[in-house]
């Protein structure tokens, strides 16, 4: 009976020790995985620092136009303030297959005005809305003197809000 008791207790001890050894081995493996993950994260942080700096530096510029309505209003008011004769003005919303820029506001604008005034207007738009993209530009002679007729297709990106850095 005593022998049986000793044998059983030793068997149980051996089982627990075996489980402990397996658990310690697993723990070492998991610890190594954590170390690798942290190294990988640190490497990615180092590699992406410049890109994230870029994203942060552009966040304010990209936040200027957050909705299609804001985009249309912004361009329409600039056209009005520019003192140019608007021949046509049309806006369309384009769905882009892009996670970052899911939507684009495309403005089709045609106006006529003094050559200097017209080009200054374009320069101001490009400076104030640096993320805007002139997709098409056509300048022809205007009806009179120094006037030009400018047809412009201007794209404004609507960037996914949650990716921009908080102001």
């Amino acid at each position, binding site marked *: 009976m005593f022998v049986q008791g000793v044998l059983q207790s030793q068997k149980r001890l051996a089982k627990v020790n075996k489980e402990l050894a397996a658990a310690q081995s697993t723990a070492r493996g*998991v610890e190594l995985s954590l170390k690798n993950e942290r190294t990988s994260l640190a490497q990615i942080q180092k590699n992406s620092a410049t890109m994230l700096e870029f994203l942060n530096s552009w966040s304010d510029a990209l936040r200027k136009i957050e909705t299609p309505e804001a985009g249309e209003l912004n361009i329409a008011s600039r056209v009005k303030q520019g003192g140019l004769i608007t021949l046509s003005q049309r806006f369309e919303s384009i769905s882009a297959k892009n996670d970052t820029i899911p939507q684009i506001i495309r403005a089709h604008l045609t106006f006529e005005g003094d050559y200097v005034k017209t080009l200054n207007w374009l320069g101001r738009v490009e400076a104030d809305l640096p993320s805007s993209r002139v997709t098409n*530009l056509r300048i022809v002679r205007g009806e009179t003197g120094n006037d030009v007729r400018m047809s412009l297709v201007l794209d404004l990106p609507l960037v996914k809000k949650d990716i921009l850095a908080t102001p």
Partner: protein
Amino acid sequence: MLISRENLHDLKTERNDILPPLPMIMRLVPILFYLSAFGAVVLIAINFLQIGHSSAQLEAVRQETAQTKTKITETQTARTELEARTKHAVDLLQWVEGSVGVQSLTVEISRSMAPKSAINELSLSRDEKNNSQLQFALKLQTADSGQLERTIEAIRKTSFRPFSAKQSQEGNRISYEATLIRETPVVTASNPPNE
């Protein structure tokens, strides 16, 4: 009732021993039995103490492993978020790279015009696949033979270079078409937009 030892002795018949008496050493048998029983109990007690200790250690290791796994999950989540954010930054960089202003280019072209020259039509359109490239077309009316060269030189002063150029002339009318490729990236991560 008490019976004397002598009387009892009388009741017992005399008999001869079948075997010789056991040697003295056999007296150790019960002693060893009790010692081994005691030893077994001590051994079982030690084993149980060790089982308790190992079980506690096992539990601690398991908890530590669970905590490490949680940290791994957190690190992986942070990495995924960082990768997604970097991907967004790359997408935006591509957009911005393909959105370089054309006003300065247009102004440079206009400034290159001599008094006897005039632009009839100027058009710029972005390549759909490669937004940083521009399809450029210019129709000029000029009596100046060096006008187009000056205009091309003016384009070269900007960050664009004309490639695959085609030109034709009919009297004073010159048509020029080219693909304008940006030579150096104007926008970089360290070059934020002017506010």
